[in-house]
């Protein structure tokens, strides 16, 4: 499989890396602007193997974009791309002696970056299996249903009390006596000194208003 990226113009081979022509080998000093980016990186890395710090910092900095591209193509989440870059740079430092300047630097780097990306995905997967997602944890929590229902009931009660408080005084009185205090029509009439018929009418009106306010019924 080959990969050509538009932003860098570099070619990656998943298989055998294309060997660079030894005769066309470019030294770090001669790596001018007309040299292809891949050849420049190869020349910088070759110089880095000999201890050239400037060439080394150049090739590492130039590698960041390439590593991110490889990691992205492997499916690494965006927020983990920089972690793959860090791990890859550390690996490059540790195994820089394995790079052969006669071969493609980009293919060498892509192989390392691809492996670090897979490691990242695996550790990410392991972490996800170990940790329960918050939504699932809430579902599995003992007493979750009770707590949720209690909270919902409390909210409904609060809304009902607010709606009752907004009723006209006669209707509010009828609801309080026969609805909340669960008194009979006769007891309510006796308690309030009002006519039973008036209480009954007020209760019906109040219930109609409350239904409209709480459920949107007309």
């Amino acid at each position: 499989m080959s990969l050509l990226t538009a932003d860098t113009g570099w070619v990656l081979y998943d298989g055998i890396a294309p060997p660079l022509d030894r005769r066309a080998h470019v030294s770090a000093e001669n790596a001018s602007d007309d040299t292809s980016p891949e050849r420049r990186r190869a020349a910088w890395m070759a110089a880095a193997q000999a201890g050239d710090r400037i060439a080394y910092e150049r090739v590492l900095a130039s590698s960041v974009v390439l590593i991110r591209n490889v990691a992205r193509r492997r499916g690494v989440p965006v927020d983990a791309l920089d972690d793959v870059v860090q791990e890859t740079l550390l690996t490059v430092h540790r195994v820089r002696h394995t790079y052969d300047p006669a071969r493609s630097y980009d293919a060498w780097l892509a192989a390392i970056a691809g492996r670090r990306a897979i490691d990242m995905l695996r550790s990410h997967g392991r972490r996800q299996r170990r940790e329960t997602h918050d939504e699932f944890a809430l579902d599995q929590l003992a007493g979750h249903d009770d707590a949720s229902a209690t909270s919902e009931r409390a909210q409904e009660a609060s809304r009902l009390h607010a709606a009752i408080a907004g009723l006209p005084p006669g209707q509010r009185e009828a609801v309080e006596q026969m609805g909340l205090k669960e008194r009979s029509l006769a007891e309510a009439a006796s308690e309030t000194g009002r006519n039973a018929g008036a209480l009954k009418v007020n209760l019906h009106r109040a219930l109609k208003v409350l239904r409209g306010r709480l459920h949107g019924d007309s």
Partner: protein
Amino acid sequence: MEIRDNMSSDPRHQMLIDTLGAELTPVRRLPAPWMRAFGWLLIVAAIAAALLMHYGTAPMLQRWAGAHDLAWAAAGAVLTAACAAWAAFALGVPGRSRAWAWLPLPGALLWIGASGLGCLRTWLAPGTSIATGHQSADCLVFIVSFSIPLSALMIWLLRRACPLRPILTAILVGLASAAASASLLEICHAYDAAATDLLTHALAVGIVIAANAAMGGRLLLRR
């Protein structure tokens, strides 16, 4: 300015690059995979020379002259060992194709095919006998015993490289070691090809490959 242009916005990268740059020391490049494989095969050749000095070349050459399938099987084992070692060292370098793992296949086919054909012979090769169960077990012990140091040596050499496919590389290490040990066994193997002997050899090779895949893979993964 090109450096900054190519950098991610994450400042950690620049800090890490600065740190790695400060730690930079010249390194000695890893020799080419074929050269490293050749070095390992020289060790095998040295052991072979010691065995030949002890047992002599005449019995082996007499067996081969009398039954060519034995010679072809030995050649297949040697070819398998060389190709598997080369492939293992190639896979120790990042960017090398996974297709390298197929390199030992022709040698292995020759080794297995010639050994299998030998079992079909109805006559005994000169200077040989059919191995008893106990003698076949000695062959298994020989292959496993010689494979241990040869595998350890190759794993030690590969740890200086960067095998990004550690288990596949370890399988090739096991195949190279087992094939090399079977090649060494040929020097002192006074038994003719037979199904029981062939199965014992196959079992020994399988044990060595499985052990390498299980242990060698982990050892190579540390890099």
